[in-house]
């Protein structure tokens, strides 16, 4: 948690002044019982109403000033804690933005979202409590003990004993129950996992008529959660009664020994009442400490999760890279003896790939699942860096470009068709901020999306729901293709981007791409032989290695892997027709 403290730097004033004001109020609160004692011992015993009025006025004054102090503290606390949360959230988001695909894969999206939302909120709360209560509660407990010492040194032994015992009870109960919170959270996660599975798999579950079994599974998980919750609650339920008993035992001792001291004349009746008051204050303060322990236990877990992201170094960076000029005469894209494996995987996803693509060429990439097709194309925009060899664009190693220059000339259509909430136009302007309607409409036309976009109410201004839920799978894919085309990129990467299209639309799309993207270097990844068949050259991947490069006809003759793929999908008549 200490490491995150640097984000509090801008709030030094609040962090110092806040607790200072709060402690001032606490001092006043500690004085009140003394004022009361004086009221009783001097006012009542000596029949002095004027003194009672004076002391009463003093109490109200202490209250008003105390209120002012604590409101000031609360103000500082909310400024500082919200400011801290805002800064951490912003920095965390920025940091996540620099992480590359390898780290995103490893940490996982849902976990990153939780860290950005819940964990930061938890930390924010901890900062607020830090300012508001962390100094105040122990201060009050210690202060009350000190005041008791000032009143009667021997009596204060009772206070010390009570404080230690109450603290011990708090420690015993908390240290046993706090570890369970994580366990309960995991059980709750399981409940929500089963729910999610049942929603996404509703069709399969019903097809197998497994609803009853699923209900049992859910009930088991809920029952486990219920039992654990009750068990932990049973433990925490001890806290209040136990501390109450201890505090009252101390009060009994105060009355008894106080009686002895008053009898001997070393203490007054009013002071006994004051001691009783201080005991009550200690009890209340220690209960606050117990709550603080819970908050800070949670916060330190959150801090660890947030720090984990701050500590993650992006495996791909463009630090220190400056704009590079293309090498004349170099191939547009070149793979030089590239080998790559995903972290953790021993099996290389790509091994010793060599390939040169001329400017304007259309390359088809085909191969089975796990053959490395997507990996191959994701090395070009540097989503990952290869462990061995180099990828070059315009004769320059991609690792030497600034991201903006490299990715700015590449249009990517990812496997999963993702759109963002907003309008169609906003989505189209993703890669090219100032694109005008003419550019957008041309891209839509090529992507075979113009027709249905025109029919939408509002056309380009038609709303897109989160994730593009208001479009069908095929429409989404066509829109993502259009989005990549809007900036007229020099390189276009289609990563199995036509899988949701029926074959007629698919064919029309390929025709349009061919006609309207002259000069564009196109890499087309697909499982379908038909999609890549007409490419200038086809790269066949098999288990991460290049099994063949050439035209459809050449490969049909020379490459057994390719032949097998084609024959599994096309009739021999179709496969041979070209």
């Amino acid at each position, binding site marked *: 948690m200490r490491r995150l403290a640097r984000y509090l730097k801008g709030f030094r004033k609040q962090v110092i002044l806040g607790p200072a004001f709060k402690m001032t109020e606490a001092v006043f609160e500690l004085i009140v019982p003394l004022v009361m004692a004086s009221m009783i011992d001097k006012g009542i015993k000596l029949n002095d109403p004027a003194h009672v009025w004076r002391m009463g006025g003093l109490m109200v004054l202490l209250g008003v000033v105390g209120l002012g102090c604590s409101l000031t503290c609360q103000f500082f606390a909310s400024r500082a804690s919200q400011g801290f949360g805002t800064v951490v959230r912003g920095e965390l988001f920025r940091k996540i933005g620099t992480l590359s695909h390898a780290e995103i894969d490893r940490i996982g999206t849902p976990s990153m979202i939780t860290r950005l939302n819940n964990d930061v909120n938890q930390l924010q709360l901890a900062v607020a409590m830090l300012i508001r209560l962390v100094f105040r509660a122990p201060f009050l407990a210690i202060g009350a003990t000190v005041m008791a010492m000032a009143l009667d040194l021997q009596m204060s032994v009772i206070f010390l004993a009570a404080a230690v015992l109450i603290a011990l009870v708090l420690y015993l109960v908390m240290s046993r129950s706090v570890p369970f919170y994580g366990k309960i959270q995991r059980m709750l996660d399981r409940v929500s996992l089963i729910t999610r599975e049942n929603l996404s798999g509703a069709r399969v579950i019903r097809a197998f008529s497994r609803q009853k079994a699923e209900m049992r599974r859910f009930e088991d998980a809920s029952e486990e959660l219920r039992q654990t919750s009750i068990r932990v609650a049973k433990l925490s339920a001890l806290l209040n009664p136990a501390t109450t008993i201890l505090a009252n035992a101390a009060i009994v001792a105060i009355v008894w020994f106080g009686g002895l001291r*008053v009898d001997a004349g070393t203490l007054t009746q009013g002071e006994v009442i004051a001691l009783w008051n201080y005991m009550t204050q200690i009890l209340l303060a220690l209960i606050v400490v117990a709550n603080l322990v819970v908050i800070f236990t949670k916060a330190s877990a959150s801090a660890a999760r947030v720090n984990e992201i701050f500590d993650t170094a992006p495996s791909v960076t463009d630090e220190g890279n400056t704009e590079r000029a293309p090498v004349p005469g170099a191939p547009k894209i070149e793979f030089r003896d590239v080998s790559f494996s995903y972290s953790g995987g021993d099996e290389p996803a790509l091994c010793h790939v060599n390939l040169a693509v001329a400017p304007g060429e259309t390359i088809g990439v085909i191969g089975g699942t796990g053959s490395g097709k997507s990996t191959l194309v994701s090395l070009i925009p540097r989503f990952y860096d290869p462990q061995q060899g180099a990828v070059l664009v315009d004769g320059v190693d991609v690792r030497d470009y600034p991201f903006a220059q490299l990715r700015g000339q590449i249009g990517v259509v990812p496997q999963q068709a993702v759109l963002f909430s907003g309008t169609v136009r906003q989505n189209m302007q993703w890669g090219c901020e100032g694109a005008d309607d003419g550019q957008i409409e041309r891209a839509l036309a090529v992507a075979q999306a113009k027709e249905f976009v025109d029919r939408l109410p509002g056309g380009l201004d038609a709303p897109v729901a989160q994730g593009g839920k208001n479009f069908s799978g095929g429409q989404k894919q066509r829109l993502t293709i259009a989005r990549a085309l809007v900036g007229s990129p020099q390189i276009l990467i289609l990563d199995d981007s036509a899988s949701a299209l029926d074959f007629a639309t698919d064919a029309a799309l390929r025709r349009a791409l061919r006609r309207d993207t002259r000069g564009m270097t196109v890499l087309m990844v697909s499982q379908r032989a038909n999609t890549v068949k007409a490419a200038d050259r086809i790269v066949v991947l098999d288990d991460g290695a290049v099994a063949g490069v050439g035209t459809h006809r050449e490969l049909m003759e020379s490459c057994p892997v390719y032949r097998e793929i084609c024959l599994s*999908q096309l009739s021999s008549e179709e496969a041979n027709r070209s």
Partner: protein
Amino acid sequence: MKQQSVFRRLMRFTRPYRGYLAAALACALASVSLSLYAPVLIGDAIDFIVGPGAVDFRAILRILALLGGVVLAGALFQWLMTLCTNVISYSTVKDLRTAVFQKLEAAPLSYLDRNAHGDLISRVVNDIDQISDGLIQGFSQLFTGVVTILGTLGFMLAINVQIALIVVLITPLSLFVASFIAKHTFDEFRKQSMIRGELGGFIEELIGNQKVVKAFGYEARAQERFDEINARLYRTGVNAQFYSSTTNPSTRFVNGLVYAAVGLFGSLAAISGHISVGQLSTFLNYANQYTKPFNEISGVVTELQTAAASARRVFAVLDEPAESPDAPGALALDRCEGAVRLEDVSFSYNPDRKLIEHLSLKARPGERIAIVGPTGCGKTTIINLLMRFYDIDSGAIYVDGTETRAIARDSLRAQYGMVLQETWLFSGTIRENIAYGKPDATLDEVVAAAKSAHAHSFIKRLPQGYDTPVGEEGGGISQGQRQLLCIARIMLTRPPMLILDEATSSIDTRTELRIQKAFDAMMEGRTSFVVAHRLSTIREADCILVMRDGHIVEQGAHAELLALGGFYAELYNSQFAPSEEP
């Protein structure tokens, strides 16, 4: 739904635990009364400590002994009360969750398709937690709070009416302060949670698609938008937190006023002999904790409001109608022949947009029906209707000559083996997933199914083999491999009819040939419906349904349809359009 009826309906869920509820209330009453009695005893004891040489130790000892008993009993009742409310609250939560989950299992698919899954999950998890925190725990707090206030007033009145009246006079002030703060806080919190929701949505979308963000170099613009929302969140956050945090100091202040007033007037009364010093100290102790229950109650009121909102969302799910029950005396099919007939079937998801109209179709046992057509023409709808995920609007579907509405849903669905485009596996082991349709299958059967789906070889290579857990999002198992597992699942149950939704599209193209063979073998003698994109599948079909805008425009075998020169021929030829020529 009115707040009151929400509350009443919720109480119905606590009915199985009404014993606990009664016990909790009784314990609360006892513990509060005892804890309020303790200061009276202490005050009495202090009255026996007057001054040097004037202390009555015998009387003090007697009072202290009683005090010990009162404190112990009070603590015991407090403990029992907490135990009872915990049982009520966690058990009700579990029952509510189970009830909502059951409803989700029984609701028609149209309901699940229509609602965002994230929202439904949050009802099952967060909203129900909110109910337990707010309504059930809040209720017990409310109860003890009210009892404490009334009890305190009662004891005060019993000791000294005048001073008690002064306290009563100041009481509205604390109520006013509490409600003033609660109102402002509530407004600010509402604003805050709105912006928080906006930020959450933004984060979900952008971080969730970080790869696309990077591909388009959108990072800087994303940061800009994020910072803008974040700054707004800061502004309302500061306000919301400040307002809510004024509760404590303000009530402490009111408390201080009450304390000062009691001290002042109490002392004056003591001077004139109307009250003893011990009684005054009892009063002071009450005054010290007097506003605490007000404070808690005002907090509870806000919580009750949020909880009632959550309860409404939960009840909305429970109020959804379940799938129409099977007709009385519905037939349980054992194993059908596989003759399927659709007669004049019309169906639409939305009455304003007609989808399938007057569709008739006949599949003889063992025939293979391929459904083709452009995207969005209603191909997957046919699956929804065959499986009775959705009920048709008019017309009839027959299996082996029996109208499907007269067949028990479970037994109808068991006749089909279904492999959808979106692979669904649950978070169990591979073995459990393959055996999903036949949980009692032996390992040998599972392995045999995996072998015939060509999944055995990759499963064998996994570190834990068939016991490898399947993660939610794959977890080391590729999309293609997931597909193989889904096929193995069907290979195990071997139902008489098959429904395939372009199932093989993401399978390794090389093993696809073998899978196709395995499927061919399985489809042998089984009626199959295939939503197909692959020409080889289409060509071998006994009957091709060509769909366009929800209508079957052509129907027949490959050669016939080509000869017809209609829409199918156009589709087919577009596949080998001029662009394909070198």
